[in-house]
């Protein structure tokens, strides 16, 4: 059983989980908005990126995809995947080799599309989603190392919690609570010999940002080495 892991590798596994989940969520949202931009609601992309605090400008559906995926803003998919690739390289010795290879391939797919000025269409999103599916399948194999999986998993679900709190807090209350429980459970297993960690709970009057801050503060307490 895997027992030891450096703080650096644990941090990179955590962020790998976050960035992959962020890519998954963002691509899903882009797909939904793209469909609307075509002929239902031309401003669907603007509304989506407002939630990311990004003022997105585009002239048509194709242009929306291009600006959403490669535009100069924080939610740029290529930037997210560049970070994920870097995380994966640092902790590659703890990743399934197939999962690692697919992460590199996923980044390469976006990089070559960008560098070669290839046409950006729905195929790119399809291919990316398929690769992410393969990465997550490889990660879910039973022969995985429990400790490194915990850091990857917690990154993934913290990102999901972050997204649901920002975008769908009211309708996703139950899901958010169940994610909090899972985060609590993983955190406890990772810190069982240490002081009790605070529970993530929304106290009356607290803002979304307060809740997100308490979520991140909890995770920060796990990796102390």
């Amino acid at each position, binding site marked *: 059983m895997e027992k030891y892991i450096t703080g650096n590798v644990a941090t990179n596994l955590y962020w790998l989980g976050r960035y992959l989940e962020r890519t998954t969520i963002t691509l899903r949202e882009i797909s939904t908005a793209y469909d609307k931009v075509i002929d239902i609601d031309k401003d669907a992309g603007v509304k989506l990126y407002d939630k990311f605090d990004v003022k997105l400008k585009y002239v048509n559906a194709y242009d929306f995809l291009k600006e959403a995926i490669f535009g100069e803003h924080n939610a740029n998919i290529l930037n997210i995947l560049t970070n994920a690739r870097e995380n994966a390289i640092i902790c590659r010795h703890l990743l399934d080799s197939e999962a690692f290879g697919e992460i590199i391939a996923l980044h390469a797919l976006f990089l070559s599309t960008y560098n070669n000025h290839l046409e950006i269409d729905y195929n790119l999103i399809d291919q990316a989603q398929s690769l992410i599916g393969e990465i997550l399948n490889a990660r879910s194999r039973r022969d995985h190392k429990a400790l490194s999986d915990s850091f990857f998993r917690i990154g993934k679900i913290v990102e999901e919690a972050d997204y649901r709190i920002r975008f769908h807090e009211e309708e996703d209350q139950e899901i958010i609570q169940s994610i909090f429980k899972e985060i609590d459970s993983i955190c406890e297993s990772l810190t069982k010999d240490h002081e009790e960690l605070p529970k993530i709970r929304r106290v009356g009057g607290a803002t979304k940002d307060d809740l997100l801050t308490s979520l991140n503060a909890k995770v920060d307490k796990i*990796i102390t080495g």
Partner: protein
Amino acid sequence: MLEKSTELHDKFWEIFSQQDRNKIDEFKLYMDKFAINFNLYKDGNFIEQSLPFDVIPRIISKKEFTKIEKGLQQRVQALNLFLEDLYTDAKIVKEGIVPQEFVEQASGYLKEFVGFSPSKKIRAHINGIDLVKDSADDEWVILEDNLRVPSGSSYPLSIRDTYRKIYPDFFEHMKIDPIKNYPSIIANAMDYVNTGGLNVVLTPGRYNSAYYEHSYLAEKSGALLVRPHELTVVDKKVYFKNYNGKLIRVGSVYRRLDDEFMDPKFFNPESLIGVPGIVESYLAGNVALLNAIGNGVADDKGIYYFVPKMIKYYLGEEPILKNAPTYLPYFKKDMEYIFNNMEKLVIKDVAEAGGYGVLFGHEMSAIQMEDLKTIVKANPRRFIAQELIEFYDEKCYLNKDLQDRKADFRAYVVVAEDVKVWNCGLTRYALEEGNYLVNSSQGGGFKDTWVMEL
């Protein structure tokens, strides 16, 4: 010039002729997908790139490899005895076999370590010995010993798996030695000298040229991959810092940092990397370092000249594998020979590595030779000269065509209870036709090496 074809080669070409050559491209795709990289800094920029790979393997018969194996075991055994002797009794120096002054002027000699004996008295644990096959007499010749942090083993290990998937026919129809045992040989070497605690692979970090290899060997050998600041020294003992802040004792460190970066408290206080206090722990016998600090004296290009003498001195045996004929301008007679025959010699700066500082007499103008003579006269210990070995080319499949390239062979020799020679190695080929420099840092590529029988 190519080596005479054998039945093994014929069998290879017969199978090769039946293969789909378009699939060769899959090797590059595989290396890119799995980021099997050899990183470089060029003009201040960090460049990640895969090492060029050639699909035609070097083929060595089992019989021939057995001789190489015996020769390397003998050589590495002698080199270990030399290091242990040099840093303790120094009998070889006292008896005049190796001149004292010559040892003391070696940059890798660290007099601060005199009197210290490491765990199990092994100093050169994981070694890379570079050889070429001389076309003049069909004999393997040692070109260089690498007893500090030799790299490269992960590339053939990685590519062999791919080779088996892309072209299984070769492995179904030829008896090629499997090679997967190398990480377990490394793990055994770490276990053997472990002073009590974890095995770790110490990497300078993600931006090191061989980070891929560090990560690969840690994973496959079951050791933890750590960066210098993830280790700490308390009461002369080395500890690993777990993610939760707990300290776990370390007993064995396969370090991939050069001596001078190991410990800022001991070597360079300005250094930002290294593990402060690790040398003190090592000297107290509380941790094993693979390879030992101070090994640079034994793989010094000048000391290389004395290795055949070491074999005779320590083992009472004739060397099984020969050195390239070497001359030391340090000796007056040799200096005369070098100056009179410079056009046919290779002159090497002992302070350089990676193919740098190598000058070929036949490529130099008369003025350049005169300049070099002046430099050699001023500092004879800094240079050696060797007869140019016309070593064999290997067939390479480059740009969809078969071409000949000079190729060497780095064998990996690992010392624990006994001395093991890995039945594979890194065959490196030169980028251009006729070029003798095969180093990865000079743009050279690599091939798989098949030790096999019919």
